[in-house]
């Protein structure tokens, strides 16, 4: 059948950014989106914090809301000493949140839909929290892998399980974000492709019938908005949880 085909994964391909310059220095559209996310965060905070009013305006309220949300998350999950890690958690949360959100717009690139990006973020969190564990507890951090209150003969079985469970953290952290973002964008593309296929196959009736996938895409847009925020939240709260384990060891 000649006509439109659905190529749902084409949207994730990297192309050189910045015109011809990007090709020379390996600067892709993904990097462009990352820079855009960083610029948007900086702009929002620059605009929001300019007034420094006691009674915040809209922009300042948005900034304060984000700040207090992440601050409470840090304190509730890690404890009072969690405030030391607030800058890290906030940076990760804001970067992923804005990255997910701008990825929802046409012509923008969702850099969180690449496993390379999410795995790099997750590995950084994993290595950092492990480093914090060894920094705070020294070699006693190894006892994290020894569950308490277990008879000694079970330990050879349980310690590998604990170690694998610990090592699986960066995998689950990165795959969750990557899979959610990719799945959402693929579904969008597939339903949009249905519309083209229907119109091409059934002419005018198909064009009317393609209202159904269009409606689905509209509903999907709302869902994707939720997922974008939720995945950033989950990533941030898991970062907090891992830091909690590193600081408190239980």
């Amino acid at each position, binding site marked *: 059948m000649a006509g439109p085909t659905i190529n749902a994964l084409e949207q994730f391909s990297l192309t050189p950014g910045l015109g011809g310059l990007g090709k020379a220095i390996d600067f892709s559209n993904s990097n462009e989106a990352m820079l855009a996310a960083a610029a948007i965060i900086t702009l929002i905070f620059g605009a929001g914090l300019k007034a420094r009013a006691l009674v915040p305006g809209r922009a300042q309220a948005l900034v304060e809301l984000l700040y207090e949300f992440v601050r409470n998350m840090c304190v509730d999950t890690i404890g009072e000493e969690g405030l030391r890690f607030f800058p890290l958690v906030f940076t990760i949360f804001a970067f992923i949140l804005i990255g997910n959100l701008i990825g929802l717009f046409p012509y923008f690139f969702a850099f969180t839909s690449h496993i390379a990006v999410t795995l790099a973020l997750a590995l950084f969190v994993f290595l950092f929290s492990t480093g914090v564990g060894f920094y705070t507890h020294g070699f006693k951090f190894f006892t994290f892998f020894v569950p308490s209150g277990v008879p000694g003969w079970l330990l050879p079985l349980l310690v590998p*399980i*604990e170690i694998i469970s610990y090592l699986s953290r960066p995998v689950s952290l990165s795959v969750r974000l990557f899979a959610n973002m990719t799945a959402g964008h693929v579904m969008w593309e597939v339903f949009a492709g249905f519309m083209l296929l229907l119109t091409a196959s059934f002419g005018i009736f198909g064009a009317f019938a393609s209202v159904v996938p269009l409606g689905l895409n509209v509903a999907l847009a709302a869902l994707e908005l939720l997922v974008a925020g*939720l995945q950033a*939240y*989950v990533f941030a709260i898991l970062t907090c949880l891992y830091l909690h384990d590193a600081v408190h060891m239980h």
Partner: protein
Amino acid sequence: MKDGRDNAAFEARLEAAEQAAKAERPETAQKQAGSAQRAIELAMRLGVEMVAAMVIAVVIGWGLDKLFHTKPWFMILMVPVGLVAGVRNLLRAMG
């Protein structure tokens, strides 16, 4: 804080206002929203949590096999270990 006295007065007033607001709106709705948020967060986490442990275990087993030329015994050994580690992940996420 150089204006500590003002601040303390402000905190006291804020506390009083929060108490008054709490009496006005019962907490249950807020609590329900909180538990729903936790449920969604859990649902988003659990599926991947289990598979990730399995993947790591199988990759470790595969690597050990490659190292000791014992294909496929370490991999087979690691599958139940990964399964248990996945369940352990689930239990930890729930608790």
